[in-house]
């Protein structure tokens, strides 16, 4: 079998896998619609302002309602030391 054919078979295998993942993604996206309706009810019913992803510090739990000074507020000379501070940018003002 010529190498180009072997390569195209390998490529087709990878692209088929991607196609299956894409189809599964579409199904998951449909399932997300019901989830989104529940999230909407919770967000507007409680007036939530932030996702509960990082609960370690108040400025990463609620970046939208804290200001850029919040990480340095605990005492004079305090530095920002929580790990999620490396992932989350301070909110723009």
């Amino acid at each position, binding site marked *: 079998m010529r190498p180009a054919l072997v390569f195209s078979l390998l490529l087709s295998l990878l692209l088929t896998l991607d196609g299956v993942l894409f189809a599964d993604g579409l199904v998951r996206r449909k399932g997300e619609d019901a989830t989104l309706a529940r999230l909407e009810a919770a967000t507007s019913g409680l*007036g939530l302002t932030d996702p509960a992803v*990082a609960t*370690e510090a108040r400025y990463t739990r609620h970046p939208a309602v804290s200001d850029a000074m919040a990480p340095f507020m605990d005492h004079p000379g305090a530095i920002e030391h929580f790990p999620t501070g490396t992932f989350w940018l301070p909110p723009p003002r």
Partner: protein
Amino acid sequence: MAPRNLEKQLNILDYALSSLWRRRMKSLSVLLVFAAVIFLLASFQMVTQALTDKASQVLAYTPEITLQKMSAGRQEAIPLAYRDRLAGIFGIRRVVPRIWGYYFDEVRLANYTVMGMDVREMPEGDRLDTALAKGTIPGPEEQGRVVVGQSIVKALNLDERNTFSLFRPDLSLKTFTVSGAFSRDTDIMTNDLIVMSLADARDLYEIPAGLVTDLCVYVANPKEIGTIARKISAILPGVRVLTRPQIQKTYQVVFGWRSGFGSICLLAALASFVILAWDKASGLSPEERREISILKVLGWETSDILAVRFWESVIVSGLACIVGMTAAYIHVVYFAAFLFRPVLMGWSVLRPDLHLVPRMAVGNILLILAFTVVPYLAATVIPAWRSATVPADSALGG
């Protein structure tokens, strides 16, 4: 003519593949390193994009205006009487007071978010039951009854019992009965929440009557949010006015490339690319010179050798791209981005179930290609040209 040209390119492709197979250990290591770099970049991009998308969808329902009182640069309790001072602003539909804050559980070392309000006053408050997995939202007259997020259920073992106690500031205990639990579907917003009535929250935090944490302002016409916010700022100068568009804007940038972790991913990608480019550009090995000389003696032209090198680069970078991006998608969707969780959630004890489904837009794929494959192809042009112009007799003489 066209089939002949196609046949020629197929033969060149065959040769390029055989050449890569001959140096399979080197080719495989380049492919794996390249795929790993693409995996890292694509995973970061998919996680941030999925989180940003989710936040922008959900935060379209956040309060239109949130008011917080500031003193000495810190947030403090806001007087309920401020509500009356807003009565004169035309266009305000309702003002809902809330008491909310954090509760640090010293036994479990976890931070809970406590929210106290009259949910019947909130828009869609009567629909809140649909966000629950079990139970009901307690009415304002039902004292001591709470609705909790899934991580609270787990942390406080509320599957087996339905009462728990929290300490007031004077260390006396306040007991709560669980009236319902939020669905796992809403985990990303309600994971660490304990929702109770305003009176219970006031009692738990010992906040004096007449003070609350913030005021949620709802307006009749969303187009007037900016105007009403300016009017509120003029009437209440010591108050921070946060509007819905500001909150949404925060989440458009909060998971950004400029963040430390983003920079590390980008630097890792750039460093790997520089190493690859250096390897490619740092001259030809004697074996490569020999091979090219033999090909030229056999009648190959410079353009044919350039085509071989081009195909080699396309195969390596294309395969690395497909493998890296597929692995990144599987990592984010099926393994909930477990490699990034330590950085994304840090020392958080309560961690939500993240159901991330990244949107595979053409723009995102092009961005990854622009950062990885395009520079690789560009970097291989000069070495390819150098290898293609080796004189036929240069490596054969001895």
